[in-house]
């Protein structure tokens, strides 16, 4: 029992430290990626050396020192609770991510399900923030968030069905282990069901963008329409909570995509390493993190490339295209498994 507690505590500490450093890294890299795409250089001076590496640290210090303003008309309880709820729910999702072989806080049988469930809690936090802010723009942002996220959870969930049906498990660890075959390249997108995997991955990615309020679906905080949407009235550390949540959630959904479609911690040649060896742990973790970072990078790339959709177009895309398509993909995946099952019997 003590051993279990200890290992859980160590994993938690590692994961929490990882989240904080990662979010700061993402804030910095978002600025560098934006600069790179936009013929600029981004932050260069902070830290006095390499590519403005200390920019995020300086930003956090600034945000910590800023005055924490709450409007007189604001609902203080909701206003103060919202950032904490949003951040806590984003961090809670990390619990079930399989970072590397044996590096995982909790292997829950319903890992994917847990992530989807907790992701909806973020929405409640955003609505609380918008409502509690005493600002019409914030209310608009919150209402958009409610409409958008509620409708995109359906295609998001449905687009996760093909890999779940293929692997026959909701557990992210089991799904990763199922992709170890073919010299560590038995990833779902390279499997016999690749013709289902690739479109369902694209559907998942679009739905994840919308779920995370990333461009072109960043309507709840559309700065040219709603000033800053639901976090217009937030300043200082509370604002940074929303900021961290965005990057943490981006990473979680990228990680889910990396695990279910891109093999998680698997990498070519994984079978030649001994089980429980340090090298396997390090390389596996690196493989997982790199795949996730790549997907996060694609999210940034999309953000700095395309214009924003309008709210009715977002809804049309969700209900008229993504939901039917992801449903078809789920049915195809089930049908394919059934055909394979029949073939196995014969």
């Amino acid at each position, binding site marked *: 029992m003590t051993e279990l507690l200890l290992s859980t505590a160590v994993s938690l500490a590692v994961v929490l430290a990882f989240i904080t450093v990662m979010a700061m890294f993402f804030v910095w890299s978002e600025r560098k990626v934006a600069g790179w795409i936009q013929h600029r250089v981004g932050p260069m001076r902070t830290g006095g050396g390499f590519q403005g590496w200390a920019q995020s640290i300086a930003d956090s210090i600034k945000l910590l020192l800023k005055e924490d303003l709450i409007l007189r008309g604001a609902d203080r309880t909701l206003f103060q609770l919202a950032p904490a709820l949003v951040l806590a729910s984003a961090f809670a999702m990390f619990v079930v991510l399989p970072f590397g072989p044996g590096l995982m806080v909790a292997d829950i049988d319903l890992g994917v399900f847990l992530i989807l469930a907790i992701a909806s809690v973020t929405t409640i936090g955003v609505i609380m923030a918008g409502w509690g802010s005493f600002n019409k723009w914030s209310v608009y942002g919150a209402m958009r968030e409610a409409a958008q996220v509620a409708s995109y959870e359906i295609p998001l969930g449905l687009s996760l069905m093909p890999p779940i049906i293929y692997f026959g498990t909701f557990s992210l660890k089991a799904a990763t282990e199922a992709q170890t075959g073919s010299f560590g390249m038995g990833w779902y997108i390279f499997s016999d069901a690749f013709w289902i995997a690739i479109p369902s991955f694209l559907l998942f990615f679009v739905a994840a963008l919308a779920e995370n309020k990333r461009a072109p679906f*960043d309507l709840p905080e559309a700065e040219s329409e709603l000033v800053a949407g639901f976090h217009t009235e937030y300043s200082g550390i509370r604002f940074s909570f929303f900021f961290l949540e965005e990057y943490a959630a981006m990473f979680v959904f990228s990680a889910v995509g990396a695990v279910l479609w891109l093999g998680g911690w698997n990498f070519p040649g994984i079978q030649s390493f001994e089980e429980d060896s340090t090298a396997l742990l390090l390389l596996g973790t690196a493989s997982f993190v790199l795949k996730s970072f790549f997907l996060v990078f694609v999210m940034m790339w999309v953000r700095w490339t395309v214009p924003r*959709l309008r709210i009715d177009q977002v809804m049309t895309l969700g209900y008229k295209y993504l939901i039917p398509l992801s449903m078809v993909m789920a049915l195809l995946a089930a049908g394919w498994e059934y055909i394979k099952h029949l073939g196995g019997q014969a």
Partner: protein
Amino acid sequence: MSSHPAAEFDHLPGREVELDVATQDCLIHMGPQHPATHGVMRVLLKADGEILAGAQTHLGYLHRCAEKIGENVDWLQYLPYTDRYDYLAAMNNNLGYSLAVESLLGAEVPARAQYLRVICAELNRIASHLFAVGTYGLDLGAFTPLFSALRDREEVLELFEKICGARLTYSYIRPGGVMNDAPEGWLTKVAEFLDRFEKTWHEYWTLMVENKIFIERTANIGVLTEEQALSWGCTGPMLRGSGVDWDLRRDQPYLIYDQLEFDVVKGIGYRGTLGDCFDRNFVRMFEMTESVRILRQCLAQIPDGEIMHEEVGAVIRPAPGESYVSIENPRGELGHYVVSNGTKIAVRVRVRSPSFCNMSVAEHLMPGSMLGDAASIIGSVDIVVGETDR
């Protein structure tokens, strides 16, 4: 017990209450500090959820009494004030004012100065349209086109810096001619810029204008009919976007425009209805290529010679009289009405600014569209608040 669950409430009083919930339109102030109003302009929006029921624009936050100042300073001293009403197209403002003063003086400007004026005005048109197209992307949530546009605009500003020392408020074109002759090699640099710009123009086209989301956000939005455009006094890309074939450079030629070959670009409803936001942006995109054509001809034809009329000095005393001269500013018809009583100070300087008239119709385009379209419509008008308020 297979009846509908809602039947349980049938016996309760109040079942007959009408199902429509009474709702109230939401009044929102968009501005004066708002990212999409391009400065300190305020739009009072009446919104029914996401749909706009009405809009009202409030101007005047940037009023600096430019016209009144014109009645208190010398004719030449007023020139820097013209830079400041449309700060994105200051060359064109200088040109409009100078032409008005020259028509009072009856002074004919030397040929080289005329060419330099057209070169600067057209370069400024490219810079202004680049900024308009770029910020339009920003209004729609696309950040990158703006930075590409600023990269190219920067080259134009550097050219201006070389010829007159200023990057934004030039005061380069002045009554009687231009301030400086072009420094050595400057015209070659302009030609080099045009070569580069023709290539990067396609970047904006593929990155932004042909983007599916951009088309969805602009086509069929904020449709300004030809009749509306004419009756509201719209000019410039706003008018031509609605399909009206009217350009002062061709229809009321000034300087050497009648010797130059160029097409007047007008909207054709390329992706939607004629006169929508897409068409207005479309006109701006192609006016840049027409400006490149004009500039190439000017660079080939520019003669040597004087750059200032010898009789126009620092103190100008036009003969008593009045004059109205309008030119084609990047935003539309920029008119200067000047009255002189023979002294060195004007009696009246009146400016007919294009953004002001163009903006007046915008609030009539908004009702019925979505909240997100408000930014799209305001952006497509391409206002400069310094000029609407003066």
